[in-house]
């Protein structure tokens, strides 16, 4: 990799130990992926914020690292393992809380913005088209690339932090225009109501490492959010392109090597496969974190109804969204907990519940593994009916 004189200085340790480590990391990853240089980034999104996912070793690393480092560009943080205000009501214990608190303090000292969400683009850190980013968090990465038109690879927690400290990232992968061309073309016969997350789930499986173009995809921004999150959870690629019915889209399709049509029966078959049981300890909504529009829509459909109280309910969102729609939040709170700063994937859910239902394709990947849950997929509408009467 070719480094500027100033980058060489940092690598030699002339700007301190923290900068040196960060630069070493960027250069090593750049070499592994065949990058030729570092490029400036507009922002970073840092993952590895929950005590559940990074453990004691992660705390120690962050505490040591925060002694002599600070971010130099805007950087926001992924969800924690708990709601900072309602962790006791969630059932999180003191020990987990105190370890989580050490992580929170280390990131604050590093200068990472405490958004605690997987949807930074709904909480103030919204990239513009064409900007280069170093974002971790698979669902945010895919939304930034595919819907917002920014450019980012799926960073790991430490590499996103290193990029935030230096203000640069190695130029490879999705930072290069050539690699943003689709290689597999996917068409759905139809996507029935509530099945958008499963459409993403299937696209990820089919695409694997290949960037897909999804034909005739007419989705709201929130639907893109859940489609992409599921795709990034089952596949290895952090971007899709799409065409919309009745709209001309300029797309370079010369790299497409395969075309796949997905019959509706495959979507319903996937739903059957992820159905799980009918009894749940928890109904978890908001993976990725709910937008204002989603909170409002759910509040509308629950208004005037009573909670069925058949299971606990979590509505997960960012604090920014929570604070901006207090009336609707009040409606939802009658049916369950509206949690901020955390979610069903990174909270210590395995200590609290065994059977969880969700409307998220991404959650169907992580609830059974990271969360040790028996997981059930249901469309949002079905879950709202189940929690109300």
């Amino acid at each position, binding site marked *: 990799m070719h480094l500027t004189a100033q980058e060489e200085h940092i690598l030699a340790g002339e700007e301190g130990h923290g900068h040196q480590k960060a630069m070493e*990391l960027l250069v090593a990853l750049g070499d592994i992926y065949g990058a030729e240089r570092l490029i400036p980034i507009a922002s970073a999104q840092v993952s590895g914020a929950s005590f559940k996912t990074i453990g004691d070793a*992660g705390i120690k690393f962050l505490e040591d*690292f925060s002694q002599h480092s600070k971010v130099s560009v805007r950087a926001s943080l992924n969800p924690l393992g708990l709601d900072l205000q309602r962790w006791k009501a969630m059932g999180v214990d003191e020990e987990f809380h105190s370890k989580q608190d050490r992580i929170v303090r280390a990131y604050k000292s590093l200068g990472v913005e405490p958004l605690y969400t997987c949807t930074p683009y709904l909480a103030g850190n919204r990239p513009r088209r064409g900007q280069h980013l170093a974002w971790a968090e698979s669902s945010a990465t895919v939304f930034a690339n595919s819907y917002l038109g920014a450019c980012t690879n799926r960073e790991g927690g430490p590499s996103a932090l290193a990029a935030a400290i230096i203000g640069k990232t190695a130029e490879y992968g999705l930072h290069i225009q050539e690699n943003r061309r689709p290689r597999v073309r996917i068409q759905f016969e139809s996507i029935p109501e509530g099945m958008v997350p499963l459409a993403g789930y299937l696209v990820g499986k089919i695409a694997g490492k290949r960037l897909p173009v999804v034909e005739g995809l007419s989705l709201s921004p929130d639907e893109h959010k859940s489609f992409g999150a599921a795709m990034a959870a089952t596949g290895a690629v952090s971007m899709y392109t799409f065409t919309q019915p009745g709209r001309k889209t300029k797309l370079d399709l010369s790299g497409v090597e395969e075309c796949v049509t997905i019959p509706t029966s495959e979507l319903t078959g996937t739903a059957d496969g992820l159905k799980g049981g009918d009894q749940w300890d928890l109904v978890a909504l908001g993976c990725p974190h709910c937008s204002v529009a989603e909170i409002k829509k759910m509040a509308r459909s629950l208004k005037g109804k009573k909670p069925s109280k058949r299971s606990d309910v979590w509505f997960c969102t960012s604090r920014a969204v929570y604070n901006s729609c207090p009336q609707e939040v009040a409606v939802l709170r009658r049916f369950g907990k509206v949690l901020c700063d955390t979610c069903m994937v990174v909270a210590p859910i395995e200590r609290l519940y065994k059977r969880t239902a969700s409307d998220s394709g991404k959650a169907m990947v992580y609830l059974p593994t990271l969360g040790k849950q028996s997981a059930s997929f249901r469309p949002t509408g079905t879950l709202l009916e189940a929690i109300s009467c």
Partner: protein
Amino acid sequence: MLIRARKIKSGRASGKAVVSSCPMSFLGGIDTVSGKILDDESESKGLSITDKVFCFPFGKGSTVGSYAMYQLKLNGAAPAGIVNGSAEPIIATGAIIADIPMVDGIDVSLLRTGDDLVMDADKGTLELLNVAEKEVVTSIVRHRQKILLLQRSGRVGSYRGQWAGVSGFIEPGEDDESAARRELEEEIGVSRLRLVKRLDPIRFRDSEVVWSVHAFLFDIDAPDIKIDWEHQRTEWILPRDVAGYPTVPGLQQVVFKLLEC
């Protein structure tokens, strides 16, 4: 023996090798307190990597593995160095944050647990102190569909009684094709052959030797050959039948690569 390597994390390390031929994760695959390998799939399960040069093909598993490497370092249980076939981000990140010198680009199948290794990431080298590399040629001679196998006699220095191609050391200052042709003349008395194909050197480990084999395929018009003292028998066989012969290490691979079967 000295092998070229690529720097991932700068630094120098020396010590005994601990080799795992399967991919490794530091989260769950290594005990961060004792440094012992826990992974059932590893042939080195139960061995400690602490202060050793830990060699494995590549990393696998959760990204938290990088932090587990940092924990291992804090516990004083880290390896002295890491050697990978091809580095991926989790192990590379862990090596950097935990300050463990690391190189990649090494064929881990050439390494054995217990080897004396010296790695220098900045120079881009890995030295095997207990291993010598020997440069040899081996020629497969083909007549129509069949290839020539020779059984090594009881008077040669190595691999007595085993089946081989026409083989020998490359002399100092000699290029490999000349060495191959010299051996063909000496061992089977043939000088008129057509070179059909050659392979980039293939390396094999056999006890304390790494054979660097320069392999050639020659066609011959008539199967008239005359063996010298180095061999006791010859046979013309179909290439696929090579698997049925007790051969010198790697011969089957050489034959299959040369004939692409």
